[in-house]
């Protein structure tokens, strides 16, 4: 099929190149993480959107391992922040200290100033420390004292949190959750996968041997291409209809924000190019609606009492919003 010039700027070579790189990334991470191809693909989607990911699940599932494997697959400056209740904002952003040798104040950058930052157990940090991440996540800059320091591009934050162990934790505020493009839940591996994990980790940790497969320059280029994926007007309307439906749903107290709509559209573009297409399909939007929207919503008390998960609510919404197809 031919493309009409208007609106479609990607060439077949571009798409093939991105797909090849995406496959390489996924294969590389799969050397460490077994049976979580869908989650790895979602992480890649977030990377292409230059957005942040929240990995949420019970302990021992492999959240940190997945985040580290993804980070190691990228050839960038990688830093890790282990969140604890006594972690201070200055520990994250960096400080100005007095250098006795030079007789002046110098800036010592914190771990947030890196290409890829793993924020482990984010909900163990105090709200004060969590709040210092807001500026970094949205504006890709950090303000220390009176200085504004721009974070290196690409800047990606992979955060993990444990949803069941609530003692000594501070739930993330809505403003922070909204800044994560996606919340990924890994889930337990099945029997075969668990056996394969044992085999793979028997001798040594495969993470140690993992090498980077995408350079930061390459990632920036792919991010640029990703924005050129064609989104039809009807698909845009479809994405808007889904997010708007979250605002009027009877079980939802706080619906998805316009940032969520934007995130959904961007993520759909990224998923389309990863899957070798230069246009977005309604399937992309549907597939991404749960990971992109569910964590941003706030359920009403009665819905919480009834035990309805937010994922189920989003799925219900998807099942009611009509897909733009011929009638």
């Amino acid at each position: 099929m031919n493309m009409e010039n208007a609106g479609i700027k990607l060439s077949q070579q571009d798409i093939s190149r991105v797909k090849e790189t995406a496959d390489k990334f996924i294969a590389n991470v799969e050397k460490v993480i077994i049976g979580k191809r869908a989650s790895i693909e979602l992480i890649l989607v977030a990377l292409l959107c230059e957005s942040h990911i929240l990995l949420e699940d019970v302990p021992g599932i492999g959240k940190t391992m997945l985040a580290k494997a993804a980070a190691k697959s990228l050839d960038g400056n990688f830093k890790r922040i282990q969140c604890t209740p006594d972690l201070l904002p200055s520990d994250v952003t960096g400080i100005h200290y007095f250098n006795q040798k030079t007789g002046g104040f110098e800036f010592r950058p914190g771990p947030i100033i890196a290409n890829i930052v793993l924020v482990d157990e984010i909900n163990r940090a105090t709200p004060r420390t969590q709040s210092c991440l807001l500026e970094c996540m949205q504006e890709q800059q950090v303000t220390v004292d009176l200085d504004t320091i721009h974070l290196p591009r690409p800047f990606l934050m992979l955060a993990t949190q444990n949803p069941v162990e609530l003692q000594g934790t501070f739930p993330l505020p809505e403003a922070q959750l909204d800044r994560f493009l996606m919340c990924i839940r890994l889930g337990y591996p099945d029997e075969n996968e668990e056996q394969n994990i044992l085999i793979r980790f028997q001798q040594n940790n495969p993470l140690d041997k993992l090498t980077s497969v995408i350079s930061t320059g390459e990632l920036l280029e792919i991010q640029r291409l990703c924005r050129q994926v064609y989104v039809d007007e009807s698909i845009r309307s479809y994405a808007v209809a889904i997010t708007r439906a979250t605002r009027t749903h009877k079980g939802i107290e706080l619906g998805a924000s316009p940032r969520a709509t934007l995130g959904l559209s961007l993520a759909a573009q990224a998923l389309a190019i990863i899957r070798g297409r230069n246009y977005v399909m309604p399937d992309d939007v549907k597939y991404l609606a749960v990971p992109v929207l569910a964590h941003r919503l706030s359920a009403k008390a009665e819905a919480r009492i009834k035990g309805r998960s937010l994922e189920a609510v989003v799925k219900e919404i998807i099942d009611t919003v009509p897909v733009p197809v011929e009638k």
Partner: protein
Amino acid sequence: MTLYWRKVILYLATAMMELCWIYALVALMNGKGIPENLSIISLITAYPIAFGTSLILHRLKLHRIARRAISWLIWLIVLLLMLKLLLYGGTAWADSAWLLSIPRAVGQIFTVFRAELLIVIGTIILWWFGSRLAGLKMNFRTLVIEFQFGLPLLLVFFIIAFLLDINIGSIPLALLFFFFALLGLSISHAQEGSVWLSGIYRGHWAGLLIISITVVLGLGLLIGLLINHNFIQLILTGLNWVWDIVTKVISWLVSLFPAEQPSPVEPQVLPVTPTNPGEGTEYSRLPEQVRKIIGGGVVLVLLVLCLVALWRTATLIYNRLTKRAVSNVEIETLRGGFKADLFRLLRWLAKVFKIKLSRKQKSVRPEVITVRHLYRQLLHWTITKGLPRKSSQTPDEYLAILTNRLPEVSSDLSNITRLYNGVRYGRQIPEENEIKELKRNWQRIKLVRTSRPVVEPVSA
């Protein structure tokens, strides 16, 4: 020829003229919207029944309202009988399924056009015209009206049938229509005393009439046979040869001008799928700018010709009026009014041109329309198979359900869905061979209906 037989022939001519276009209409609906082929000839029997019923009711001298009520009651009986005999032959009379099929078809009117609906609409039209015929006064005026009314309708149906590629038997229908129109018109004309023959030929009126009709129809048939596909192809080849020479001359003229500087940003377009060297004909294309200039020139010439024609007509009318006028009557020159009209026409043309130009930019390519139309047809077809698409299902999700239910045409379904996805969401334009393949896919899918009974609807 006795008065009785003349009347019979006139009734027959009128009925046949009406039946010709009604047949075309019903055949069109049958070929376009309905998966099953309905016997149109059987359906048309409603017309003579309506005519006969009306004649009898006229003789009974009932009140107008009672007459109409009885007539439409009989129509209802005829409708039910036709429904049972034509569509539900195998169903028991006691079974209510065939009776309930009408409300079901009416309920689905916006999604699918069912055969039941065609029977209802067809019998209503036939009954109304059949009843109307019984009350008509057979004279030259009636025949002319029937001819004037039927001819444009018939032509419109022929054009629609041609565009939709539906065979409704245009040639026999046209021949029949003209035969009965000529027959009816000449007889009615003769009946009113104004015979078209004079002198010694008046004695051979009937024979000459038949010869004239035969000659006219024969010539029409001969032209129809001569102007076939090969003949048109021959003309097109000749025109193509001439056009080739013209393009070469224009290309040579264009080559004399300095080449345009390439734009700094090259548009990124997917490579066109290579076609087999043997397929298709190569057409030399003029540069876009030259084509635009030539197109503009042609439009300009046509406009000037139209204006000259208008001017000439206006002058002729003016001269004629001046000659006929009595000396003391002043005739206002048409030129002033003509100028005002001319400027109004030009303004209107400019407006139309502007609208067309803006529409052209937004226009949809025919290939895209074909794919989307075919997918819509597929959706309607699957409804009749009891596999309706849920509004929240994407084409790919729906494809999974369809391939599960209709595995024998899974590749055809997936090809249609793939093309549709590209066209609908990706603004892609399918190649000509892809369109051909798509049509083949659709033909194969349509064949499934004969071997597979209606299945239960998909649970929500």
